[in-house]
């Protein structure tokens, strides 16, 4: 069976989803269910002291028993903050060590700061974390992150939350061709065809949040994304036909076509 293997663990779903920007936990839960995702990202934030002590916790809805929880470092702008955040996450999740590293470079574009990302990755790998790393679509950066020991590299398709789709398939192709660890597109997917294109390129998976959460009907979009990732994967495995400017031969036989009406009358 075709499985996604990350850090020695197999997953049947190649769609990874975030839990941000949903209306409420019920919608989060329904959308993730519809996506079929097995790996689900969460953020780590300060708890509201003294406010709503009875408030439900995300992990009561998206439980670590059912899903592989992937804590992220969203909002971190330095290697030091990212490392601290993930050490807290590991404590929060009882020693769980699969994490998503992302170190941002600027609050407007959310473009990754690769210098800080490389530094954080090095510290985290030495500290025993299994690091899935969000990165720019620079093939050399992706290779260096792999060499540091990251268990998956996750280049952006376009900027976080932009929904602009796959802007540089050629760079992604080079990253995929050179990688010995799974390559997942993380960020920029806007609709189902974007996810399918990523998978057709040979990506091992796709991680998305806003494309589902900001759809008019998030649960329906989650279902669409599930199918798009599956369809793209199957198309990649099937091997597409070569592109040609025009067909050398039509699909239907050229022999046995009935005579043109005008010719019959003439005979």
């Amino acid at each position: 069976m075709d499985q996604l293997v990350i850090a020695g663990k197999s997953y049947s779903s190649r769609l990874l989803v975030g839990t941000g920007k949903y209306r409420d936990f019920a919608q989060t839960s329904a959308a993730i269910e519809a996506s079929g995702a097995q790996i689900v990202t969460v953020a780590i934030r300060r708890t509201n002291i003294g406010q709503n002590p009875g408030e439900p916790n995300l992990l009561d809805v998206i439980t670590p028993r059912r899903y592989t929880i992937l804590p992220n470092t969203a909002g971190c702008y330095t290697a030091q903050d990212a490392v601290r955040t993930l050490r807290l996450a590991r404590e929060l999740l009882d020693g769980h060590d699969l994490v998503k590293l992302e170190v941002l470079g600027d609050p407007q574009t959310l473009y990754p700061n690769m210098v800080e990302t490389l530094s954080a990755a090095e510290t985290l790998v030495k500290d025993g974390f299994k690091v899935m790393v969000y990165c720019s679509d620079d093939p050399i950066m992706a290779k260096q992150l792999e060499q540091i020991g990251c268990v998956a590299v996750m280049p952006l398709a376009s900027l976080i939350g932009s929904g602009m789709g796959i802007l540089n398939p050629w760079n992604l192709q080079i990253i995929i061709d050179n990688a010995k660890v799974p390559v997942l597109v993380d960020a920029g997917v806007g609709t189902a065809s974007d996810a399918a294109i990523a998978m057709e390129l040979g990506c091992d998976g796709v991680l998305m949040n806003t494309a589902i959460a900001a759809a008019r009907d998030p649960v329906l979009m989650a279902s669409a994304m599930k199918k798009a990732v599956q369809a793209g994967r199957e198309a990649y495995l099937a091997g597409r036909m070569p592109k040609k400017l025009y067909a050398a031969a039509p699909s239907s036989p050229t022999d046995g076509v009935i005579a043109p009406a005008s010719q019959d009358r003439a005979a």
Partner: protein
Amino acid sequence: MIALIINGQPRSFPAPLNVAGLVEQLELQGKRIALERNGEIVPRSRFGALELHDGDALEIVVAVGGG
């Protein structure tokens, strides 16, 4: 009394106070949290043993929705 900084906010509590006592006072017992004191993680197993001191800075975090 001891003065603590919890998630950036100053708070005072009657002394003595250990981490387990603080967690209870904040009504966070039994919740999935992680806690850092002065930049160092405090494992849950040490909550009962670790005494807090005047001026300690604590970060208490939870998992929230995010991508």
